[in-house]
């Protein structure tokens, strides 16, 4: 069974409210997104900033509640009244702000156990030590404060904190993009090593297609709150169908290949006022009149693409 199933999930945020608290302007951060993540796999969501990929992670973590649709964890719907479950945990983008500057490293790692009142002091201390070993940090860091640690060390602490409750699904919201390039690889390797020692599913949110092609099993490409294309990594990377995916891939610098003209034209449109029909048509090199109508969802051989260009397939 899939550990995570997201069914037609949408999320709107009120941007402006009138006097009575009714929203007069809404931001559709996520529109009718569906995907499922098999247990033990690495599923990636890629997209530009503003595509709604982080909102998806927050919805799965229970930080926000979906406006529509439902999220199933191991087949059970994530209900509104549910206290957030230990089985889903999250690693944030910026370890600078994801650790409390006024708490010791010990407290940050131990916090999950303290919140749930698990174990006595000795058992907790043992679990904290085990987590430190797992993420490759020394015990001497325990009485220190976040500002005394390097960026990479802080992200390791954040990983240890998220793993102490033994989650089954770990949400990685751009876990390396705030780190130095030299440290990024270390953190990614650590994450992959950890996955070898336990049954753990990763939902990786990123804009870096290189990371996706190295570590991921399946990938979904998001644009303005919608998934435009999804499939296995080899499908998407080797033979992208959607013009947006193609553009993203050709934007990855490759020393063996000369850059072919500008891959994506212009900026992502404001999510407050997205283009009707296919949202990508304002920047799409292949756009035609038919693109003003909503694109069909085309399913072909385990992959899915939303584009008029491919409506002939099935």
């Amino acid at each position: 069974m899939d550990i995570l199933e997201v069914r037609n999930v949408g999320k709107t945020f009120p941007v402006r409210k009138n006097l009575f608290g009714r929203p007069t302007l809404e931001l559709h951060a996520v529109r009718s997104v569906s995907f499922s993540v098999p247990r033990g796999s690495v599923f990636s969501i890629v997209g530009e900033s503003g595509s709604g990929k982080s909102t998806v992670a927050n919805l799965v973590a229970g930080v926000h509640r979906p406006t529509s649709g439902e999220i199933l964890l191991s087949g059970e719907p994530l209900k509104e009244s549910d206290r957030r479950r230990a089985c889903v945990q999250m690693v944030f983008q910026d370890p600078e702000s994801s650790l409390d500057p006024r708490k010791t490293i010990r407290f940050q790692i131990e916090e999950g156990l303290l919140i749930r009142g698990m174990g006595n002091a000795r058992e907790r201390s043992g679990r904290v030590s085990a987590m430190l070993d797992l993420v490759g940090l020394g015990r001497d860091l325990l009485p220190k404060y976040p500002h005394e640690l390097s960026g990479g060390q802080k992200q390791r602490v954040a990983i240890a904190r998220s793993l102490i409750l033994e989650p089954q699904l770990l949400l990685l919201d751009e876990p390396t993009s705030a780190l130095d390039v030299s440290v990024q690889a270390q953190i990614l390797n650590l994450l992959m090593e950890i996955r070898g020692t336990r049954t753990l599913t990763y939902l990786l949110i990123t804009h870096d297609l290189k990371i996706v092609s190295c570590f991921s099993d399946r990938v979904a490409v998001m644009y303005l709150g919608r998934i435009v294309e999804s499939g296995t990594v080899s499908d998407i990377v080797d033979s992208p169908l959607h013009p947006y995916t193609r553009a993203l891939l050709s934007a990855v610098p490759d020393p063996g290949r000369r850059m072919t003209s500008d891959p994506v034209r212009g900026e992502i449109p404001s999510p407050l006022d997205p283009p009707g029909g296919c949202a990508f048509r304002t920047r799409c090199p292949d756009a035609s009149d038919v693109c003003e109508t909503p694109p069909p969802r085309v399913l072909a051989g385990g992959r899915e693409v939303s584009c008029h260009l491919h409506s002939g397939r099935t």
Partner: protein
Amino acid sequence: MSGTFLKRFFRSKQGVMGLCIVLLNVALAFGAPAISPFGFEDMDFANTLASPGVGGHPLGTDDFGRDVFTRLVWGARVSLLVGVIAVGIGAFVGTTIGVVVGYCGGFPDALFMRLMDALLSFPYILLAIAMMATLGAGLFNAMIAIGLVMVPSFARVVRSSVLGLRNEDFVTASRVLGASGWWVISRHLIVNIMPTVIIYASLSFAGAVISEATLSFLGLGIQPPTPSWGSMLSEAMPFIDKAPLLAIFPGVAILVTCLGFNLLGDGLRDVLDPRMRS
């Protein structure tokens, strides 16, 4: 932990200086009966409005011939008590309201903040007078009134820092780990707003002493002839041209005490901030 806390505190020059001033004040206040050369009500009619040193009065006398030094020392009792208790009430109630409504947001936030705005729109002294009129005159009621008048500004300051903290990733992380609102407030928000509260409290101390002076001047605070710095200041007003020192001495006492509390506050803030260690 408390050992290293003290050690770190004593490394901060400002903090130690502030602590010395505050302790000196406290010592004067407690030792008033022993230190003062005269009784605070004793009148020396031969030497009214005397200059410092005349007739054995170290800081001179006021218009009734009462010894200024004696009254300053006794006044320290009232002023310190009012300052500390009133600021304590204001900081405690204001911080509680600010943290809770700031974290909860939504309707309670809107309701409480409009209420606080409404209170802030009154001149604070008018509000204190109105409260005193309801509670009745007296030192204890003055402390409560001044403290309650300070609540809205504490609530505002605290709420705005909570609004910033609420969206920090470490709060989200704590919630994802399963933390309740109470856990987030008690373990993360309180420690992070403490520096703001301490600074604001040390700045408010001066305001509290002045408010007590105003209330005393209007006959609502401490009742004469018991001295407080504020009442001494206001009693000196008519003689400002003939005997300016009469106003200057209590003024300097208020100034130095406020300085002491501000320095102490700065020192405490630095010690409480882990980033200032090392």
